[in-house]
């Protein structure tokens, strides 16, 4: 098997085992309702994580995504509620703003050679601060189109709902996977993650690709912000605090190496679902206090990475077996 597929396989296996174990304890977890909720509730995280996957594959990191979600939400809300724009116009504006923001970060990372960690940290402060400068309150969005979008869903047998935002996330994952694995841009992303110097000597347009990667991440975070605002019908400057860590966690659990160059978009999907499963499991359990919740999440995270290493080690044994002629 291809070496780089192994962590992905590990994640998928762990997810399957974890899900089976959880269902044994709470059969309710198998209902279409829970499955539908998985997609809907994690839609904004999933969309963000797709962008984060590209960033991490290229060897970078984007700490600003949570703040960008908050900022776009507020921007969209203010554009619709205060300025009376049509939501679609507001979406377009928000995505353009997000794209510019991402481009500026990519520009700073490439041309000023400041580490991505720090540029995007400053970006996080800026977006979060910008949102609270626009408004401190949470701004409700009342618009017919909004209610239409947010209540758009297919009913599944068994009371579950397949919502518009859930499907949107799936679509973003599919497009993301195609872009990452089947386009030149995707191969450039992996190239940057492999070795920037080599990539540039091999003719990869490093500056353009870097800027595009951070643009992509910010645009997807912006899209996630729109989804979040659909989800809550409001824009709130403090929305989605800390989502960047969840997104990074999902990407890494999904088998992508933080050092860049290895990983799959699909792995991130499994990672998001795994995080969702942990949360749902804890809710179903319902006996954990605030602190035990944190301890258990930390412990499960630990368990996943250790298991992943074990599966990885087990499958890489016999890697360089001598091929006697």
């Amino acid at each position, binding site marked *: 098997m291809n070496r780089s597929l192994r962590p992905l396989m590990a994640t998928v296996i762990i997810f399957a085992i974890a899900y089976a174990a959880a269902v044994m304890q709470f059969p309710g977890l198998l209902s279409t309702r829970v499955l539908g909720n998985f997609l809907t509730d994690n839609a904004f995280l999933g969309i963000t994580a797709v962008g984060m996957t590209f960033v991490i594959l290229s060897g970078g990191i984007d700490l600003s995504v949570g703040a960008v979600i908050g900022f776009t939400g507020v921007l969209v809300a203010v554009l619709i509620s205060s300025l009376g724009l049509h939501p679609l116009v507001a979406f377009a504006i928000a995505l353009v703003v997000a794209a510019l923001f991402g481009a500026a970060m990519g520009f700073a990372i490439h041309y000023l050679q400041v580490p991505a960690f720090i540029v995007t940290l400053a970006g996080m402060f800026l977006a979060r601060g910008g949102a609270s400068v626009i408004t401190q309150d949470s701004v409700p969005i009342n618009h017919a189109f909004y209610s239409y979008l947010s209540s758009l869903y297919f009913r599944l047998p068994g009371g579950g709902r397949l919502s518009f935002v859930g499907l949107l996330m799936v679509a973003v994952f599919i497009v993301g996977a195609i872009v990452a694995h089947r386009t030149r841009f995707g191969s*450039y992303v992996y190239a940057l993650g492999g*070795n920037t110097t080599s990539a540039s000597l*091999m003719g990869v347009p490093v500056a353009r690709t870097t800027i595009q990667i951070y643009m992509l991440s910010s645009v997807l975070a912006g899209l996630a912000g729109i989804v979040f605002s659909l989800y809550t019908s409001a824009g709130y400057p403090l929305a989605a605090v800390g989502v960047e860590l969840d997104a990074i966690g999902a990407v890494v659990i999904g088998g992508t190496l933080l050092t860049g160059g290895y990983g799959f978009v699909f792995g991130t999907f499994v990672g998001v679902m795994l995080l969702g499963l942990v949360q749902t499991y804890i809710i179903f359990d319902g006996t954990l206090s605030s602190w035990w919740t944190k301890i258990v999440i930390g412990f499960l995270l630990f368990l996943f990475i250790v298991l992943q290493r074990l599966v990885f080690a087990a499958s890489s044994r016999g890697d360089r077996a001598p091929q006697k002629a």
Partner: protein
Amino acid sequence: MEQTAFRMEARGVSKIFGNHTALDAVEFGLLPGEVHALLGENGAGKSTLIKILTGAYQPDGGKILVDGEEVVLNSPLHAQSFGIGAVYQEVNLLPNRSVAENLFLGHQPTRFGLVDRRRMDREARVLLQRYGLGIDPSSELGTHSVAVQQIVAIARAVQLSGKVLILDEPTASLDRDEVQRLFEVVAGLKRDGLAIVFITHFLDQVFALADRVTILRNGKLIDTRRLDELTRTELVRKMLGKDIAFSGSTSLKTERPVTDVLIDYEGYGKKRSVHPFSLTIHKGEVIGVAGLLGSGRTEMARIMFGIDPADQGTATLNGRPVAIKTAVDAIKHGFGFCPEDRKADGIFGELSVRENIVIALQGKLGWFRALNRDEQLDLAGQFGEAMDIRAASLDMPVKLLSGGNQQKVILARWLATDPAFLILDEPTRGIDVGAHAEIVRTINRLRDDGMALVVISSELDEVVAYSSRIVVMRDREMVAELRGEDISPGVIVQAIATHGEKAA
């Protein structure tokens, strides 16, 4: 518009790094259908020149012409669009991607805007076959040896170059057959009218392949000549600015009296890596290790040094059994190891030359017996001088040194630990004739001082020059041990081949 016959031309090109002038108004012209050797000592500026010719660096002065027209090459990609392809000195590929993708990155065949993987793999397979490489194009490049990667890099460059092909020390990690194949490919390209730049430190290869030579010294152009106007001695004199004795090929293999045994490996090996081997190494002896690509020479060295600890057999040092489970153990017992992949395993790029030299000794001394700055400077100065390291300052980052000088730094690092047993994996890779002779001399000197050495090299002439005994590896198995009369390139080749036939 000035018209010249040159396919590509550099006029008065200069490059300055900080205070150091790496290139000083260099003139360089390439004719279509020629193989042009670019020669010079380590640090002469060869790699810098080709980086400028391929847009990886911007010149600080002068201009570049392609087909008589002035161009500004602002990136390798831009250079590629002019049909200029290059293999850089350090293998610059992506270990994390498949072989096929490394071959086609940026030019992947597409269908409906998406990369057509199947076609890409198919084309890659065909392409690699020209170089006799039967590897799976969808396998990860990083899982292959340096040599394989080198071939892939060459295949990529050839593929991209419509007009100019630049090869910076492409043969450094190739064995004879591979070199031969490469030469055939280059000859074919030459017939097709490509202009080819060829950088190497192997003068034999220069004479075998090149039509013209350009010689650089200290960043200055010394001469450009047709090769048939030059003798070997003249060439070397131009490169070094002085005469040298070819100690390498003239040294005498005196049958040495067998002295004390230093280390004795008995049935030593590691499952799934190297078959158990037995080897007795005496003080004052050089064991040469020969073998084909991927025959397991590097792996054997790593086992000897405890990086991948052996799981069977015993090692006896000075008559006492020793357990060598880590590099730290090995160093404690007076071992040293110069790895083959200098960039990945040898050099601390950001650290200074001084720190790079003292680090192994410091590692041996431990955390708390720190060498102070003066001691470090002393040591670095002493061993730097012994190895003739050309560095503007001992405090400059080692990554700014030329490839050959980096190799010398690593050697100096181990000599500073005063080892009893030194393992050198391809120590002369990428080293100029002067330094090459220097290293061969050093190996001989160390042997005479009573040190035991194991030297892995793909250069049979070189192995023959300094080895007291030669072991031949094949398929990760030690298949022959040659001594005395048998130590000659012909016998070695035969040993590899014969055993190969037997095994097949």
